[in-house]
């Protein structure tokens, strides 16, 4: 049985079709792209929920905040608390943070610019639903495309996040080190993606769907595929 997943489409989602392509054509899953007003009726019939990238509601006030207040997110929150796998990529990550499903904040890049480029992601934990086929320390080449991707959390929150093994990926330099050069947006402690305590809710700023086929990468890599393979593995293990 192939995985069956739903991609929730909001007003202003722009990476929804890329995500559908990666999961349907590359991974061979059954994927439904569903308008957010319709989506809330069917969410639990899927194996996982995806919130795609984009600029929902024009990023007004703060990226992700308006979408976080749509009724479908009440249902997503309910399911996430029961352990349902929920994944947010880019704007989807911003929505997860603004809805309180993930901790912290994603504020304007320290470059003050929208940034679209390849980054190196170091896998920091393999317990998340999106990294369990990887090895700790693996480096994935995955591109970013965002203006508000600087992860921020206060000292106390960071301590908890680190102690609870919730940092999933960090931006690193080519040699795998945590440096300012490897950090594209000024994220605190170079954090690129995190998960909740249980590991079933995962947010990532870079776009694995844009790195899921070797033709998409200057290095011929397809590291983004590991993200989706991990979910498959997570689901099969139950």
């Amino acid at each position, binding site marked *: 049985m192939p995985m069956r997943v739903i991609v929730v489409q909001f007003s202003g989602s722009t990476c929804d079709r890329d995500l559908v392509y990666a999961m349907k054509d590359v991974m061979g899953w059954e994927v439904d792209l569903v308008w957010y007003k319709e989506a809330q009726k069917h969410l639990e019939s899927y194996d996982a929920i995806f919130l795609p990238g984009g600029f929902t509601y024009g990023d007004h006030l703060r990226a992700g905040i308006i979408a*976080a207040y749509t009724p479908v997110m009440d249902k997503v929150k309910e399911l996430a608390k029961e352990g349902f796998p929920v994944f947010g990529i880019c704007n989807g990550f911003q929505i997860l943070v603004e809805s309180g499903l993930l901790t912290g*904040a994603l*504020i*304007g890049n320290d470059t*003050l610019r929208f940034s679209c480029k390849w980054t190196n992601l170091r896998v920091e934990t393999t317990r998340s639903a999106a990294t369990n086929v990887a090895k700790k320390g693996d480096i994935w080449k995955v591109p970013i495309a965002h203006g508000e991707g600087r992860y*921020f959390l206060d000292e106390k929150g960071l301590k908890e996040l680190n102690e609870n093994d919730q940092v999933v990926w960090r931006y690193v330099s080519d040699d795998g080190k945590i440096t300012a050069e490897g950090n594209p947006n*000024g994220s605190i402690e170079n954090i690129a993606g995190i998960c909740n305590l249980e590991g079933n809710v995962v947010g990532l700023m870079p776009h694995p769907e844009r790195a899921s086929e070797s033709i998409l990468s200057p290095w011929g890599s397809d590291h983004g595929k590991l993200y989706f393979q991990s979910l498959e593995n997570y689901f099969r293990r139950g």
Partner: protein
Amino acid sequence: MAKFNAEVIIEGKKNARDPEGETIMRDLMIKHGYDMVSSVRSGKILKITLEAKNEKEAEDICWNMVNELRIYNPVAHVCTIKMVK
């Protein structure tokens, strides 16, 4: 019921760098001779007009609203509300 005006000011927390404020200070003010400036923090301001019984109630409504609707993100921002004439 009367009409009241409120200003909701949203700023980044002190320990979050503010590159916009830094750029304004470094590349505009100091470069153009205003070297007496030692700090600039940028932020967002929402000017709100609302109806309430009195100013106290108007301010309370604003606070409830900004907290309930997460008009600011308490992880990254501090919020102040000023009632204005």
